[in-house]
């Protein structure tokens, strides 16, 4: 992915930030090329008490909303880490145009003893792996906007 002209500004974490990334990938042939993805994904930032629900449907991210902690966990899987770690990952993506070797979703997941991707269901959790390229592309696309941090 190459860094294009940066025009959108949004604050992480917020519904607007996730919607900005969704708008980018929904209009991106490269994202379509990866193939369909059907999954509900929670995002949890416990120390900020922020929780989101992302709905990936066919070739697009069809819905983004702020939810309760239980709402974020009532998904195929949720991504959870402290705010500082989220910030580090997104700053790395911005700096490199995409995650470097140490900041991919899978690497972060394996290096965290608790796991970055969590689920109450061993089968539904596999969606993290089944669509991993899609989720990586989604977060890598944050390099295309100006992210402000709270």
């Amino acid at each position, binding site marked *: 992915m190459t860094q294009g002209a940066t025009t959108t500004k949004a604050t992480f974490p917020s519904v607007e930030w996730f919607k900005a990334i969704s708008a980018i990938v929904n209009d991106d042939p490269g994202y379509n090329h*990866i*193939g*369909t993805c059907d999954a509900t994904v929670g995002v949890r930032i416990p120390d900020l008490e922020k929780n989101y629900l992302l709905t990936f*449907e*066919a*070739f697009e991210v069809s819905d983004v909303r702020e939810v309760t902690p239980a709402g974020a966990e009532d998904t195929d899987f949720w991504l959870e880490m402290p705010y500082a770690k989220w910030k580090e990952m997104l700053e790395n993506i911005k700096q490199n145009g995409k995650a470097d*070797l140490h900041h*991919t979703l*899978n*690497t972060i*997941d*394996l*290096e965290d003893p608790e796991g970055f991707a969590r689920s*109450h*269901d*061993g*089968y539904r*959790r*596999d969606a993290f*792996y*089944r*669509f*991993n*390229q899609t989720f*990586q592309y989604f977060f890598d696309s944050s390099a295309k906007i100006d992210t402000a941090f709270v």
Partner: protein
Amino acid sequence: MAISPDLLHKVSTEEDPPELDLSWLQPREAQQVERVRAGRRGMTFDEVERGREVPDHVNAFTLRPRDARRREDAVRTGQYYSDKSDVWSENARLLYEEAVQRQWSSATDIPWEKVTPLPDDLERAMCQLCTFLTEVEFIAGDAPAQWLPKIPNDYYETKLFILSQIMDEARHLDVFRKRAFVNGGGLLSEGQSGPSLRIILDAKDFTEMSAIMHVFAEGFVQSLFRTGELVSFNEAEKAIYRLCAQDESRHLGFGVMHLKYILDTVPERREEIHHYLDQVEGPLSLDITQAGASGATPFFDEAIMILAGGGLKGVDKGAERLMEVRKKQVNEYMHRLEVAGLGERRDRMNPFFRSLLDPPRN
């Protein structure tokens, strides 16, 4: 040469139209079906099969597709499974469509230019890992392929899914072979996986094959791919392992849901399935019998330890990482068995595996 008048007459005269059997064209012979419209994912089998039942039992001896009219003179083409439970998985249709949508090419979707020279120990360790994975992927293609002629066309969804899996496995052995050669290393030693992995090829039943290959072996290989991504040295390797892990997760998903289906519909097979898992957990338990080596595949283990440790000097750190991976593999295996309805496996698992299990979740 002159043409005889008789022949000239024959070729210049229109032949009588042949008698046509147009019985198939009669409305009473055609099934009444609704017009089908494409959905958000395109024209998938979810759209085409909506509202249509898949029979629980079939008397299949011919190539007749499900929903086609029988012919009295159709020849027998094989001995097929007759019960849906023998081959069915509720997600087969979805996973097949997903597999088709998410295909990738080792030739064009991997940024091969990002592979740069590595120190010898790391390059050789990566090549040994790729040698092992190439070997394993041959088994992963050969094993399900043996079952294709046993799956009746009535359960075509499973047949299509297995075909997509075989394509995935072809791409995996293709991409690992390419990675082994691309940096000038090449394939190294044939692994020791033959004797232990032969149990997969020797399966005598589709469910046996699926339980030991899809649920057990591919679950472990999926973890290996994720570990491969973790220890990768460049974006090309990252992409290879990530894409392979995606494919492997579909195969695993099929197996988990097939196991669930059979336990839900034919619960009397429960003990039989435990027996298959007993058989596979033993040879493939990867029990560490001495420092730095495993009972099943020491060359593979040593390669992972060198890669995870950043080189030969970091092999102790790599061994720790290998144990962390093992623990994750075993716990994920248990979680999938719980989803399938085999939660009691926790108390019956191979002792070495059981020692790696986290406490049960509430």
